[in-house]
């Protein structure tokens, strides 16, 4: 196995040197993606995810640093890189007034397929992404999920070796997100190298072999989903029960998880670390049932991105800071 994407010490500053509002979007970011694997770049808004993708996909020149994609130097030979990558951005970057079919033909032609080749590929992709029925309708009439799928289809026209997906599910409803995950998982089985950015730990978990967490333009943690979760304390089991049963519940869960539980009298909750996840949940339910206890509510709480951030950096995701500052809307994102 060899590295398909390498980024070394990327630096990109927006706003110019003299400008005191200058934003250091990338601050010495380095990462490596092995061929045929999926790397998820996880971070809040403004952490440099999009900027990283823009640099690696030749849209933006970094101030300094080095990057290669499939062994090709991104800065020296951008045009060669463009031949072998696919990019699908945060917005569905397709022509809304045209139909899905028109769009795929246009992009196919721009990738230098023959007229017939472009048509065949368009039909194939529409079929694959369950868009055949909507092929002749203008994109304007598509749902958010359909747009994203078409956008993704457009980035797959020449079967790229390396695919960049920038927040592929942001703004989608749960169903759209689920569909998108299935499509992406399917692609990954086909052997493409994928770099995907996301704000959702769950998404990274679902799709990625390795996760790189970035904040303020540099890498603050990396590893598998499991190892990161371990870092932030993993899942917790929370059980709401009537006050008089609380101590018994506590005994039961402590026996199952072999760790100390906490009781929160205010909300009648017993909470315990649940490294076993769902199997701990099932076992707990079984035991509670056997003891004749029926909880008011029981839930497995996964660590959120905020938890990860808190654990890794000691501060809350920048998103919140950005809203308070609000002076530089969106700029830091690029």
């Amino acid at each position, binding site marked *: 196995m060899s590295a398909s994407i390498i980024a070394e010490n990327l630096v990109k500053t927006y706003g110019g040197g003299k400008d005191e509002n200058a934003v250091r979007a990338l601050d010495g970011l380095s990462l490596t993606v092995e061929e045929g694997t999926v790397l998820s770049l996880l971070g809040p808004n403004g952490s440099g995810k999009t900027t990283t993708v823009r640099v690696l996909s030749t*849209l933006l020149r970094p101030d300094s640093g080095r990057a290669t994609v499939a062994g090709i130097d991104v800065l020296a030979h951008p045009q060669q890189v463009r031949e072998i990558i696919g990019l699908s951005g945060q917005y569905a970057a397709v022509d809304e007034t045209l139909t899905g079919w028109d769009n795929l033909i246009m992009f196919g*032609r*721009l990738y230098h397929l023959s007229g017939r080749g472009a048509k065949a590929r368009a039909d194939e992709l529409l079929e694959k992404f369950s868009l055949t029925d909507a092929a002749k309708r203008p994109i304007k009439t598509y749902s958010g999920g359909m747009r994203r799928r078409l956008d993704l289809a457009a*980035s797959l026209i020449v079967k790229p070796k390396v695919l960049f997906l920038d927040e592929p599910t942001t703004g989608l409803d749960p169903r759209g997100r689920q569909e998108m995950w299935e499509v992406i998982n399917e692609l990954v089985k086909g052997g493409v190298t994928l770099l995907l950015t996301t704000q959702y730990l769950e998404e990274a978990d679902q799709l990625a072999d390795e996760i790189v967490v970035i904040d303020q333009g540099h890498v603050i943690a990396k590893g598998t989903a499991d190892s990161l979760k371990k870092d932030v304390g993993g899942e917790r089991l929370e059980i709401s029960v009537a006050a008089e049963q609380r101590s018994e519940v506590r005994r039961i869960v402590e026996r199952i998880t072999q760790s100390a539980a906490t009781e929160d009298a205010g909300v009648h909750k017993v909470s315990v670390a649940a490294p076993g996840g769902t199997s701990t949940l099932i076992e707990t339910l079984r035991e509670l049932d056997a003891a004749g206890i029926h909880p008011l509510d029981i839930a497995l709480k996964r660590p959120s991105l905020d938890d990860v951030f808190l654990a890794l950096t000691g501060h809350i995701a920048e998103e919140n800071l950005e809203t308070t500052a609000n002076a530089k809307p969106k700029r830091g994102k690029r």
Partner: protein
Amino acid sequence: MKDALIITKRQLLQLFRVPEVLIFSTIQPVMFVLLFRYVFGGAINTPGVDYVQLLMPGIFVQTVAFTVAGTALGLAEDMQKGLIDRFRSLPIARSAVVVGRTLGDATLNVVVLVVMAITGLLVGWRPSSSIFEILAGFLLLLIFGYAMSWMGVLVGLSVRDSRVANSVVFLFVFPMTFLSNAFAPTTGMPRPLQYVAEWNPVSTMVAGVRDLFGLEPMFGATANSFPSQNPLVMSLVYIALLMVIFIPLSVRKYKNVSPK
């Protein structure tokens, strides 16, 4: 070049999918023809020649000058929607998208000019020169429109929002077309404005096109200045200047552009 034509084709395909765009981009100039012919025209004194003969070249030039708006708006929208990013990630020439866009807008101008010419003929416009001169006049209009289109590329890629593109263009092009000999004699303007109007590319274009359509030079040739004497030469100089300045700037802008 082939890539550019694909972009042009996409733009023309848009016109088929949303024919309203084409309808509205022709209605406005047609309304101008009717307004000036029947509403303002009666109040504008043009001894020796029918006002409509002077008006039509003026409106033709105004219309093609506004190509800058169409181009700017189209590109600003593409950028806002992320399409420009996608195009830039494709293995195509850096100039393809902007060349394609300007060619598409030029094609649209052909359609609009034809519709306007027909309207003009219906309301009494009768060019008196040879067919070759008339065609040369229209060719000049198209080339001027194409040059203006490149200014639109730079504007469209520079603004943060497509609505801003529209305002910027109107702020600039609207006075430019009115501060000219297009609709009324410049002799009615205060002295300093007359000089501006005289050197205004719109004026030289209008005078040049009138010349090609067989009209005597009049309607604003206030002084024996160079642009008044040689409108065709000056128009070609302006066209060349526009292209020399804006084509390289626009292509460079496209290479480094990033949505705001």
